[in-house]
């Protein structure tokens, strides 16, 4: 735990009475951006979504989700709430859904009932591809007009839901960038906001330490449950995460035990009590620090947190990951100066300054917090400037544990 003196120092800065300029939404949330989104509901509509949004400034997504004739209910539910959460994220002023057939229309009702401004194009009812693109562009123009009227207004800092992520980790991730991000996470929580810690597979080995910080027994049990669940899935497919970590590259880099590695990853969520454990893409019902069950796959994790309502994310990276999001700003923090310089086009901040003696963990944490507030109010991240808009659909991973599917031994 941080010593008492440092604790007070940061808390004084994170005054819940501070306000920042955000977009107020009818859905009840506050947005850091004002996107109009074109969202294909199935993979085959991705091309039409792209053609509709081309040249308009609208955000768009493409993905590979093809519904099957017989869909596992848990998988369908996971994907449906991912999509509906994503398009109702407070950063989205309005959304144009692109469906292949009319049967997808219930998604429009669900999204509109949540208070979101939304419209729908059904390709099979629009006179072919060209007709669908033309109709889509017409409807999109109306949504763009609506969105243009949105203005920022004073909002509490506590309106922020910060997604935290690490990718392309190296030996320094747990020493510089993650602990510094953890300082900023603590500041966000102290200001009344929410911080999401995810990547279940990377918490394996630290479950007991996290469980000790849970606000009650039920949350502690949930922490153990999601971690052992993911371990069991991976084992069912013949691999052993706990046994394989730290990997030889990690050991060479200085990580000695799995608990050390996972603790280094968990650091980015900060030190505050853990209030809730969420399934993938489920919106938190509390403020404070929460844990979400997501795969370690970078993009699936980001999409899960975004679908839960994160309007901004901080992503630490050791080797340099360029990814962003179609609808939320992703602040990229390098663990060391070498990568920060090498990939300057993609990196927003360097925690390598700690190694140079130019910053302490606390002062770096403050820098990150200040950057979060600036980016929330409109400063563009490198990922946004470069147009990174990564998106991936996460499938339900636990069927094999439910006794539903026996894992195949490999397609070869």
């Amino acid at each position, binding site marked *: 735990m941080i010593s008492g003196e440092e604790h007070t120092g940061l808390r004084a800065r994170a005054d819940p009475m501070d306000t920042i300029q955000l977009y107020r939404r009818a859905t009840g949330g506050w947005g850091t951006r004002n996107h109009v989104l074109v969202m294909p509901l199935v993979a*085959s509509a991705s*091309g039409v979504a792209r053609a509709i949004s081309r040249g308009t400034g609208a955000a768009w997504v*493409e993905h590979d989700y093809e519904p099957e004739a017989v869909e596992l209910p848990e998988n369908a539910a996971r994907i449906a709430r991912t999509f509906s959460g994503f398009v109702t994220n407070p950063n989205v002023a309005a959304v144009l859904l692109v469906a292949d057939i009319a049967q997808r229309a219930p998604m429009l009702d669900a999204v509109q009932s949540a208070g979101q401004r939304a419209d729908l194009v059904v390709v099979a009812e629009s006179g072919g591809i*060209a007709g669908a693109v033309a109709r889509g562009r017409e409807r999109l123009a109306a949504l763009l007009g609506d969105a243009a009227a949105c203005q920022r207004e004073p909002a509490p800092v506590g309106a922020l839901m910060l997604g935290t992520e690490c990718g392309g980790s190296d030996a320094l991730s747990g020493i510089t960038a993650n602990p510094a991000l953890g300082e900023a996470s603590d500041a966000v929580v102290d200001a009344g906001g929410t911080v999401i810690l995810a990547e279940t597979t990377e918490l394996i080995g630290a479950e007991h330490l996290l469980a000790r910080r849970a606000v009650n027994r039920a949350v502690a049990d949930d922490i153990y449950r999601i971690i052992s669940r993911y371990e069991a899935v*991976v084992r069912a497919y013949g691999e052993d995460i706990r046994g394989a970590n730290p990997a030889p590259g990690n050991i060479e880099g200085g990580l000695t035990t799995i608990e050390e590695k996972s603790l280094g990853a968990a650091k980015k969520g900060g030190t505050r009590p853990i209030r809730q454990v969420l399934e993938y893409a489920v919106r938190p019902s509390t403020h404070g620090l929460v844990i979400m069950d997501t795969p*370690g*796959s970078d993009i699936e994790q980001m999409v899960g947190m975004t679908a839960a309502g994160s309007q901004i994310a901080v992503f630490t990276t050791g080797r340099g990951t360029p990814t962003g999001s179609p609808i939320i700003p992703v602040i990229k923090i390098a663990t060391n100066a070498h990568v920060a310089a090498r*990939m300057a*086009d993609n990196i927003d901040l360097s925690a390598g300054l700690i190694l140079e003696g130019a910053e302490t963990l606390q002062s770096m944490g403050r820098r990150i917090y200040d950057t979060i507030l600036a980016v929330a109010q409109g400063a563009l991240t490198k990922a946004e400037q470069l147009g990174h808009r990564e998106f991936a659909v996460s499938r339900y991973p636990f069927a094999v544990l439910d006794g539903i599917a026996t894992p195949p031994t490999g397609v*070869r």
Partner: protein
Amino acid sequence: MGDALTVRLRGRIRPTGARGIRHHLLVVPSVLCAAQAASAIAEGIPGAVAIEHQHGCAELTSDAGLTEQILVGLGTHPNVAGTLVVSLGCESVQGLLLYRAIERRRQRAEFVGIQQAGGTLAAIRAGREALARLRDAADEDPEGPVGWGDLRIGVEAAWLSLPAPHAAVFVGVIRRLLARGATVIQAVPGFVERGPSATVPEIATPPEALASLPARTIGYAGQIPGDRAESGGAGAGLLLMAAPATRIAQKTGLAAAGAHVILSALAEGLPAGCPVAPVVHVGIAPYARLFARDVEVMVDERPDAEAPEAVIAALATVCREETAAEALGMFEMAIHRIAPTM
């Protein structure tokens, strides 16, 4: 209507001797995190096609292997004149290994690593230079005649569940193609693994409609034994490819297995193209009348005896001319997923 199979086709002759009916420069991200850079590299460059997929990160071994197999298959496709692999650096399907695997199959290839290059912008610059080198080298591939015996026709599984008169059209098409020495790769959903050492999966329900034709089974996106580039592509007959039920993943698998062109029955859902192999959409009326301008050939509610000829004529046309989907740059890609991501 004359015999469409007598139409003369032309294409490019690759250094391996294989014939291609397209001349793409393919930009392949080895992981989804590199897809943005791959698209930016290809943007606005004539002949360049970037693929986007959602794989390569946090995959278990079986999926990582399948992803690699697909990407190698697409990267070494005869319709592809040269391949640029764009890698991040830390992913499951190591970009450099992918590049080398493509090179080993005697495909023109280049490699750009985002981390090595120093970020997205540097990778885009390096990627564009690599594409220029590939194009210059690819210009040396001579044009030449392409016979049906040089072609592999991929067929999506959807027609297998059509009513008999429509299914018969496809059987007619397949028989005619086989008679002319073409290789036909038929996707068959519902495959069953035999075990870790199995090289070829069983197909759970072999298609009855094709039962009278001799056939061999290959895996999803699998190599076709005895029908590869070096020999110039002696016909391998009918191959049944174990495939997932989802159509875009089927198309991707067929393309990765080397199908030059793909036949897709459109009786539901939307038409969708494929990155390296043009798709001939065979519209099945009445549903496909919704897409009258998007399909390459329409089969009536009551197909007549000329229907297989019309389909083959459309095939021949597509071998010579760009489809509407290609002109719009509209194609989808999906890789069948075996296990959850980690």
